[in-house]
């Protein structure tokens, strides 16, 4: 495992947030997730450079291309927003959800957690992956779930947690905790 550290502490100096979805790209939906996640990161890492990239459309190749660039630039943390569900695979009218599959295609070291509804549909697939110095995670599109997931991720990093299993487990638990109770 190749993680940039200083005195055993994971250094987070350079974060990239990548919203996904045609509706975000076109402005039909205003991206409120990125600013909220950026705030979380800056609260924990005041000196960090945080960049929100242009939204990527629901296209696996484009997501992979963006991911490749981030890894090439040695970014410490990449957060993809949205595209985490089963989407079009289950319901034809839903958007195409590709962030999890793109991460899994491009990075070999990854762990995931899938949240299924009782109807058998995959509601969300959260992935934590690492290549070189770069940690990559995805969070769901809905605001409360995205923020809670990002919060869990930042907390893991602040606690110097490096185990991808633990990171993805805590992120998925955070998302689950935001589902309305029966």
């Amino acid at each position, binding site marked *: 495992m190749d993680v940039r550290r200083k005195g055993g502490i994971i250094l987070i100096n350079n974060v990239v947030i990548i919203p996904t979805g045609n*509706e975000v790209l076109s402005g039909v*939906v205003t991206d*409120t997730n990125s600013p909220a996640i950026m705030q979380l990161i800056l609260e924990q890492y005041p000196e960090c450079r945080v960049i929100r990239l242009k939204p990527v459309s629901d296209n696996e190749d484009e997501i992979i291309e963006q991911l490749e660039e981030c890894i090439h630039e040695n970014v410490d943390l990449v957060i993809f927003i949205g595209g985490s569900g089963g989407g079009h695979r*289950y319901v034809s009218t839903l958007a195409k959800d590709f962030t999890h599959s793109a991460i899994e295609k491009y990075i070999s070291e990854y762990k995931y957690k899938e*949240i299924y509804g009782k*109807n058998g549909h995959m509601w969300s697939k959260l992935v934590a992956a690492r290549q070189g110095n770069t940690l990559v995670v995805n969070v769901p599109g809905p605001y409360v779930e995205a923020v809670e997931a990002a919060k869990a991720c930042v907390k893991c990093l602040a606690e110097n947690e490096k185990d991808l299993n633990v990171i993805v487990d805590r992120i998925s638990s955070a998302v*689950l905790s935001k*589902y*309305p109770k*029966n």
Partner: protein
Amino acid sequence: MGSELNMDDSVIAYIDKTVVRIKGVNVKGLKPFELEKKLSEFIQRGIRVIGVTGESIEMDVYNIDPEAILKDESGIIKAISTVEGITATELTKIDSAKKIVEVNIDNIPKGQQYGCQKERWNNIDK
């Protein structure tokens, strides 16, 4: 959150939801959490916006039957039309409100896959 079956890489969330699709709206610059908040206050249920285009909105509404949604169509349309980024038109309507579809037993793969029928169904898309 309902009870969950924890497996190694997957969790099943035992929560009921109805998928609601509203058509005939003009959407631009919508902040989905504002819609979720407004509608949640109106129908007293949890809501997630799961799909938006310039003309339609798709949402998960938790713990409610489709009939209850359809019964108050005009109230729901009135509530969403007050949200910034949504303009209702004379064509605005609830296009569909469906309880999440249960798994068809015929679609469950048989054979070597491990687990109960539902877990095996979950493996279809892997």
